[in-house]
């Protein structure tokens, strides 16, 4: 036996005597109290519970690692990356226009915000920010605000469902359905629209759209009222949400939490007011705030924001009526696709007249169309940053161009990604049941988190 060494070793060196002080032995006889024995056995153990990534209350594939003591969460960590699809990398290999097709798939609950932010950033690089036609901006605002309502309805609905209030979810999704029908009428799709394009939007709204939208909005307003009646004064609902998941103003600023979570602390920070885009400064709406900074206030705020969005949508519909027939794409034919979309036999495609014209009468138009669609347009060298007010907070897009027809780099600062950093602050010290509520109040969408 060599002399004792101080070298680190994982296990006790062989032949060491006096094991009794470190190794506990339990005997199943005697007159001891089983409670004492159990307490002694697990007293210093850590219990780490893995919640997700397939848990239904984690909004997709969020993984929560909770260290618990009884029902109390002593440590909470979020694990992400299960839905990483490399969208940003993929965008570097497609044209600038094709980029909208990719970024719309990031946060799939609020796809139009990624499209809008990305297109606004590309327009900055192109130097055509002021040339985007008014009607295109109005349609963008209209679509974004409708999307905000749809997204908040999903947040409130699934949040209710996770607490066992299924009716909240069914009402929320019924109302969302009305909005998705409007999206389908305008873009042809219920999600993954790729509708907002650099320079404007892909196609004008269909005939009779404003009438259809006004009808749908009546129903949405009705469902919103039902949701408010069902939840906001409900004692069980309030007991579960009030003073849960509290994050104060300095916590929010330190962690760069934006959106309803920040506004629930009382700070009326909204990009639509602070740094308006798409002409938001010309719309009349309020930024609701609350004081409680808890999960209940965030639900109240989201419902109130839905009403404010309805207000904006109504103003946008008036402007749509007024600008009937005006262009929805920049006049520059080097950027605007010549496409005149119409539903063909296969349910998509160009209008037959347009194809006949360019195929039969104008070789130059055909060449131009072909080059613009296959090559894409060039974007001047430089970088641009654009933020928009996403339903979950401030969405930022950083695009870099090397002067080519593809983005050199496209980075999305997704609010869900950033806000998930608050998981531990909001959950630690609470109960396991509060974790579900707190995460729901952050409203993460993992498609946006992982990109």
């Amino acid at each position: 036996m060599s002399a004792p060494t101080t070298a680190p070793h994982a296990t006790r060196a062989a032949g060491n005597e006096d094991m009794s002080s470190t190794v506990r032995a339990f005997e199943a006889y005697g007159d001891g109290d089983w409670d004492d024995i159990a307490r002694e056995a697990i007293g210093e153990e850590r219990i780490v519970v893995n919640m997700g990534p397939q848990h239904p209350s984690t909004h997709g594939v969020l993984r929560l690692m909770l260290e618990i003591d009884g029902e109390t969460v002593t440590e909470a960590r979020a694990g992400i990356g299960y839905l990483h699809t490399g969208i940003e990398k993929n965008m570097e290999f497609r044209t600038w226009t094709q980029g909208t097709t990719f970024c719309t798939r990031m946060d799939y609950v609020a796809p139009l915000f990624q499209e809008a932010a990305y297109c606004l950033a590309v327009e900055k690089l192109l130097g055509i920010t002021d040339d985007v036609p008014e009607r295109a901006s109005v349609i963008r605002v209209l679509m974004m605000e409708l999307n905000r309502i749809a997204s908040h309805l999903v947040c409130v609905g699934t949040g209710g469902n996770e607490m066992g209030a299924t009716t909240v979810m069914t009402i929320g999704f019924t109302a969302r359905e009305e909005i998705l029908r409007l999206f389908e009428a305008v873009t042809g799709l219920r999600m993954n629209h790729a509708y907002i394009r650099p320079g404007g939007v892909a196609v004008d709204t269909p005939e009779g759209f404003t009438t259809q939208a006004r009808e749908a909005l009546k129903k949405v307003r009705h469902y919103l009222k039902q949701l408010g009646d069902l939840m906001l004064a409900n004692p069980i609902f309030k007991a579960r949400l009030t003073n849960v998941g509290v994050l104060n103003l300095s916590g929010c600023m330190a962690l760069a939490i934006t959106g309803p979570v920040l506004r629930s602390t009382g700070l009326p920070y909204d990009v639509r007011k602070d740094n308006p885009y798409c002409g938001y400064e010309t719309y009349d709406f309020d930024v609701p705030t609350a004081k409680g900074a808890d999960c209940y206030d965030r639900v109240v705020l989201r419902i109130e924001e839905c009403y404010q969005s309805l207000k904006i949508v109504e103003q946008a519909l008036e402007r749509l009526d007024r600008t009937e027939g005006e262009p929805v794409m920049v006049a520059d034919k080097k950027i605007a696709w010549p496409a005149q979309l119409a539903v063909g036999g296969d349910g998509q495609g160009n209008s037959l007249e347009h194809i006949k014209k360019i195929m039969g009468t104008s070789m130059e138009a055909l060449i131009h169309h072909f080059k613009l669609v296959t090559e894409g347009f060039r974007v001047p060298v430089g970088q641009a940053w654009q933020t928009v007010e996403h339903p979950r907070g401030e969405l930022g897009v950083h695009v870099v161009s090397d002067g080519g027809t593809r983005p050199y780099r496209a980075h999305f600062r997704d609010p869900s990604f950033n806000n998930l950093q608050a998981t531990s602050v909001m959950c630690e010290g609470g109960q396991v049941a509060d974790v579900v509520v707190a995460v729901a109040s952050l409203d993460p969408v993992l498609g946006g988190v992982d990109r």
Partner: protein
Amino acid sequence: MSDVTPGGDQGSALTPPEGAATFEVVEVRKGMFGVQGSGDTSGYGGLVTPVAMPAASPRPYGSWFDQVVDVLAEVLADGARVGGPTYDQAVEKVVVDLHGAESPDARQVELTLHVAREHLVAVCQALRDDQDLRFELSLGVSGVHYPHDADRELHAVYHLTSVTHSRRLRLEVAAPDADPHIPSTTSVYPANDWHERETFDFFGIVFDGHPALTRIEMPDDWVGHPQRKDYPLGGIPVEYKGATVPPPDTRRSY
């Protein structure tokens, strides 16, 4: 590979573009269509196009930009008395991107401060804490890989917002590929925690002083940093209606 194009490789001596004070080559494009190694039949093989990012802007910058830069210089000068960096040491250059606007007051105009990496934290601290600056909100880190920007291949871009003054600015920091270290800003902006992990994950930039710099999106045992330009996109050819569509990274580029 020797260039067999008539006229040959003519782009070896690059000159700065007209009117540029500094020359920031971030990329050199050769030929057309991204064709390599297949013999050039296009006649464009001798084309060499340097891609240079916008150069430093001259004073006055316009709008509130002069004021912010002046205040930052003052705050850093105060700090320099107790061992901090001076403005000239910390800020390499200031770029104002007009983005097509005629006056710097337009909303789309952006201010970029290029910061020496060793002084990044001091600049962030000044920008956050001084009452005339108050850039209290950091909207994350975005990495960019410029393989042709010699000794400055890896860039980290920070976007700061001042809620108090309703202003936005951008910080850009560069590090060589051989020494990919940038100090972590988490001590000033805790929100950059995950963003720095993401940038490390995708670009391999090591943020010194970060509390737990591990991969965040990719699996822990992943090899390589996927957003670097030398990392292939991957993909397989897809057959559609009898034709074969090649994977995106082998298609032509213009």
